[in-house]
């Protein structure tokens, strides 16, 4: 097992005919992801990368029954694309797009509640269940199937962590990028709950960063649920200056809120093993698992 996607998951690509989407859809196909259709308004009826293209998500859903959609559209069209997918009955939406206005995301999240759909991202590399399905833009070859779940707010730092785990002989059940924006879909605690009930997952690595309260929420959840699996966390940004946005729209210490220290303390209180050297994520996970 894995969480969210597996080898059978049928995937739609919104914005398929664009340059970036084309590149990454090709890579996903090579990885073995079951892409079934694409959507680009005005290009319905075409075939792109061997996939049928539709004008609307509704048409694509009717014809090809995708369960998951991955979105590659320009930032100002991002929220609409999320809403369109939800309205068409897609239950899991992965939005890669970076730079969606925050008010648009508030609107999109309200919309999702109405349709009971889940969102990953935006501003995420996506997710991957190694050896089964890659619904994202991460380099597939660094992953191995295995028993460590990963949840991260970052892109390349996740690749770094995956690389370390793989080098330490540890594969991954599913690696999920939840996105670097201030308002995102599924958060740490919701994914921790999915990993809790996933049989394949034996440990979870959480990669947080400055800004917001997602790590604190995760800590509260872990405490309340007496989480049965070991959790490790690295929180980036101990050296971050306050009031500065560090690359990700959501990575900012504002009004004294959202510092790495605060997050680390809360996670530690909740029994999470804190990694203070980001080059030792793989090694410490291996030690933790072998010690059990």
């Amino acid at each position: 097992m894995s969480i969210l996607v597996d080898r059978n998951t049928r995937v739609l690509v919104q914005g398929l005919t664009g340059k970036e989407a084309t590149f990454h859809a090709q890579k996903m196909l090579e990885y073995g992801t079951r892409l079934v259709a694409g959507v680009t308004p005005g290009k319905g009826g075409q075939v792109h990368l061997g996939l049928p293209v539709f004008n609307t998500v509704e048409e694509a859903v009717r014809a090809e029954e995708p369960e998951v959609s991955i979105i590659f559209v320009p930032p100002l069209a991002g929220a609409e694309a999320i809403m369109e997918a939800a309205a068409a009955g897609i239950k899991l939406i992965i939005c890669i797009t970076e730079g969606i206005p925050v008010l648009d995301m508030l609107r999109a999240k309200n919309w999702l509640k109405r349709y009971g759909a889940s969102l990953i991202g935006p501003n995420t590399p996506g997710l991957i269940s190694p050896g089964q399905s890659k619904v994202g833009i991460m380099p597939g070859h660094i992953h191995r199937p295995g028993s460590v779940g990963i949840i991260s707010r970052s892109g390349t730092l996740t690749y770094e962590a995956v690389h370390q785990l793989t080098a330490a002989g540890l594969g991954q059940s599913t690696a999920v990028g939840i996105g670097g924006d201030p308002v995102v879909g599924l958060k740490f605690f919701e994914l921790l709950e999915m990993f809790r009930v996933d049989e394949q997952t034996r440990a979870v690595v959480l990669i947080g960063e400055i800004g917001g309260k997602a790590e604190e929420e995760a800590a509260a959840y872990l405490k309340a649920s007496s989480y049965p699996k070991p959790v490790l966390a690295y929180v980036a940004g101990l050296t971050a200056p306050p009031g500065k946005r560090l690359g990700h729209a959501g990575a900012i210490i504002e009004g004294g809120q959202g510092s790495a220290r605060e997050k680390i303390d809360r996670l530690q209180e909740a029994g999470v093993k804190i990694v203070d050297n980001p080059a030792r994520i793989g090694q410490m996970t291996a030690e933790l698992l072998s010690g059990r």
Partner: protein
Amino acid sequence: MLIHEFQAKNFLQRLGWKIPPAALAESAEEARRLALELGCPVMLKAQVLAGGRGKAGGILKATTPEEAERLASRLLGHRLVTAQTASQGLPVARLLVERAINLKKEYYCGLAVDRKNEALVAIVSRQGGLNIEELSASRPELIKKIFFNPDEGLKQFQARQLGYFLELPEDLIKEFVVRLKQLAGFFIEKDLKLLEINPLVWSEDDRLLAVDARMEFDDCSLARQPELTALRDESQENELEKEARKFGLNYIKMDGNIGCLVNGAGLAMATMDIIKHFGGQPANFLDIGGGVTEQAVSKAFELLLADSQVVTALINIFGGIVRCDLVARGVVATAGRLSLDRPVVVRLEGTNVTEGRKILEESGLPFTFARDFEQAARLAVELSRQPR
């Protein structure tokens, strides 16, 4: 994008808010003349894009036009360092000269995006002029928050709840409710992230006045709010940071001596952290991003080296979309042109790592290669300690 107090007040005035009589001065002479025209006492308020101006001496009171001139000359043309600026502070090119207000009470009124609740929030406080976060922690009973969403906006009854909480006189509550509701509409229409009126003043002559204001717009929305870009004051930005932005690079100057060049924001933060972990000091945050070109990498390396505090550079690349060979070519272009005079530690991993390494090796330039993330950090810290 933050805008200045005077710009924020222009918006407020257009929305019907009353503000104290004021005008901008760019010279001490002008400040004196405005003090005379407005009538003393006046407040001289440094227009810089950072909070904490009052405590830092950026807001001064003058009781005569002569004093206004003298005080203005102490602010204008200098740099103001506040708790929220970098150590070098921000340049003061303009003062807002404002008639001092006699007040009965002061309050706080703010609108913001609440990340945790994923909603917009309107916040008022019975005490103003203070830091709202500190006040929330120490005196939560003085604060009232109401959440609303951008589709529905702030409702009249919600604005009324906040107005009555402030215990203003009845006619000022009526005025506040109308203004706040409009303000929430403006917040949504213009894609703001934060709007504060602090203090909001009940004056001795029973008027409601916005005495200080702060507005931050969402950078992601500027493409659909083109009229806002004219409000950007580039003189308030660090030169290197400004230059970096033009090339789509995320660069933030820090106070250390190890320059970092990394792909990805998370890895860039982690690179600063690991340098600190091994006892070094990062000189900057620099994320070259995912869609970077060779020219932008070249520029990034140039910016990094342009910081004279940098004694060692650390290049940490985990190639995914970004290819190691592209980064290597960009780095070599700059290093060759500038006759590299400082040690550079390189750690490459991922897409096209072999090609990248080959380009660096064949350049004949003195790069130090690290086999992994940890070794790279250790080497950089070690080199940063050696006398030059």
